[in-house]
């Protein structure tokens, strides 16, 4: 259970599948337009429950609580052997031809 004042992330459906813009491709028309925001929780709420937050710019926004104390976890990814091969090849293409190691 997240407490009032906790930093959380909400999601909300902005447009349901039937309300999508007429020009969207078929696959997009079949899914809702979803929005995610972060803010300080206005009242206690649990994951999956409706909640309200006050955002960084001081606006009140509503949605479903999806994450408490949200953090970033993006990275440099797993090992890509092709990049190592490419690096070596580039160095060799310049330096080996010039007689350097």
């Amino acid at each position, binding site marked *: 259970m997240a407490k009032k004042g906790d930093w959380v992330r909400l999601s909300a459906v*902005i*447009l349901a599948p039937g*309300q*999508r*813009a007429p*020009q*969207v*491709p078929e*696959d*997009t028309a*079949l*899914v*809702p*337009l*979803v*929005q*995610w*925001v*972060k803010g300080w929780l206005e009242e206690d709420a649990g994951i999956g429950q409706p909640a309200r937050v006050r*955002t*960084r*710019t*001081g*606006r009140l926004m509503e949605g479903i609580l999806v994450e408490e104390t949200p953090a*970033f976890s*993006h*990275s*440099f*990814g*797993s090992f*890509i052997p*092709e*990049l190592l*091969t*490419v*690096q070596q*090849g*580039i*160095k060799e*293409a*310049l330096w080996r*031809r010039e007689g350097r190691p």
Partner: protein
Amino acid sequence: MSSADYSAVMARRNAIMKSAVGLDYSRFESGGIGFDYEGLMASTGLSMQDVLAVMKDFNVGNTPLLELKNITALARKYAPEGRGARILVKDEACNPSGSFKARRAALSVHIAKKLGYKGVITATSGNYGAAVASCCAKAGLRCIVVQECYDSTGTGQPEIIEKARKCEALGAEVIQLSVGPELFYVFLRLLEETGYFNASLYTPYAIQGVESLGWELARQCEAQFGRQPDAVIATNAGGGNLTGTARGMMKAGCRAPLIAASVDLSGLHMASDGQFNRKSFTTGHTGFGMPFTTWPDRSDVPRSAARPLRYLDRYVTITQGEVFYMTEMLAVLEGMERGPAGNTSLATAFSIAREMPGDALLIVQETEYTGAGKHQNAQLDFARKQGIEIRIGNPKDQVPGRSIILPEHPGQVEAKDLDLSRLRRSLLGRALDGAAEMPGEADLDFLARETNADPAFVKTSIQQILEDRHETTR
């Protein structure tokens, strides 16, 4: 209270934009096809010196112009005897927010503050969000960045997630959305709700900010190499980078040809939920480059100040694999980790330099910061997990959305020319809209400038378009 219904909000778009950019576009309209483009650009009332002063105030600009001697040396090994221009790069990653977009943001945020707005909103999944956040932080204004970030399974493009992180790190509020052009609807509602300034990428302020880049590179080239460059390459998406750079170069008296470069993402639909995460480049690609070049007024303001077809002398594409490859080359031969998306023009330069004489100067006019999520390793790992085939081979065999092919050797980095006449005719077709008659002289003159083509070409092309239409409706 006005209706929040999708079509009701979209119908109010011009009124919302008018109050959100502090500019009445209607006074530049002619009532016909054309409008007073130069009048729109001059409406900022700012001289180049004023623009440079604003840049200085935000610690933006004055980035170094660096010579890439090792990359040049390697290009010459794959060029005919005596060919291989000296490749120079404007290291725009040195801007506070890590890209040239800082120039676009600085002038917009400066104007927002001057006009008394309490905050600024921008709709972007790219480096521009961080640029606006950075300038707002310095100006003490509130900032909201709206991003298209996730597909319907909740999978986010790592590069866009990194940009969200950076915006938040700079104090901005980030609103993330799933795939779809209705981002514009959310954006309009936010503008209405907050009364903030729309830091559109396409206002005269944004483009005039980029003019400082063209101005600087011309002046620096003169100072460091004693003469003007022989060609300049700019990555093209929405057209602002190219337009601003060209105008700035002209104001500095530089007439070097300007080459536009985009990453080839042909065949992928930009608004498709299923294809959203099958591309590794979130900007600088043909998915924006083509539509915005052939119809600039599709942007978020009534008339776009970014009109690339007026300024480009040549337009080429390059593949994702070639750009990743050149990003590695920049790291291991020049000791600079940048990009990858910002290296689209660098990859192009490696190809075009080999056509040019050895004493020519070729300027790549940007770099961008790199990091977790953005880095080519992160991008390729993500692509592989989306089922994209990653291999070393001939990059010409790539199929956007299915494969990414890293070249086997530097000689395989080769830009592909687009047919400018076709792009010009496409713009003319759009400009004519449903018209059945030849436009008047004023509009023909406008279209000749708009397409950077001679009036005879414009007239003949329009005649052809009208005849074709007549044929199909008969």
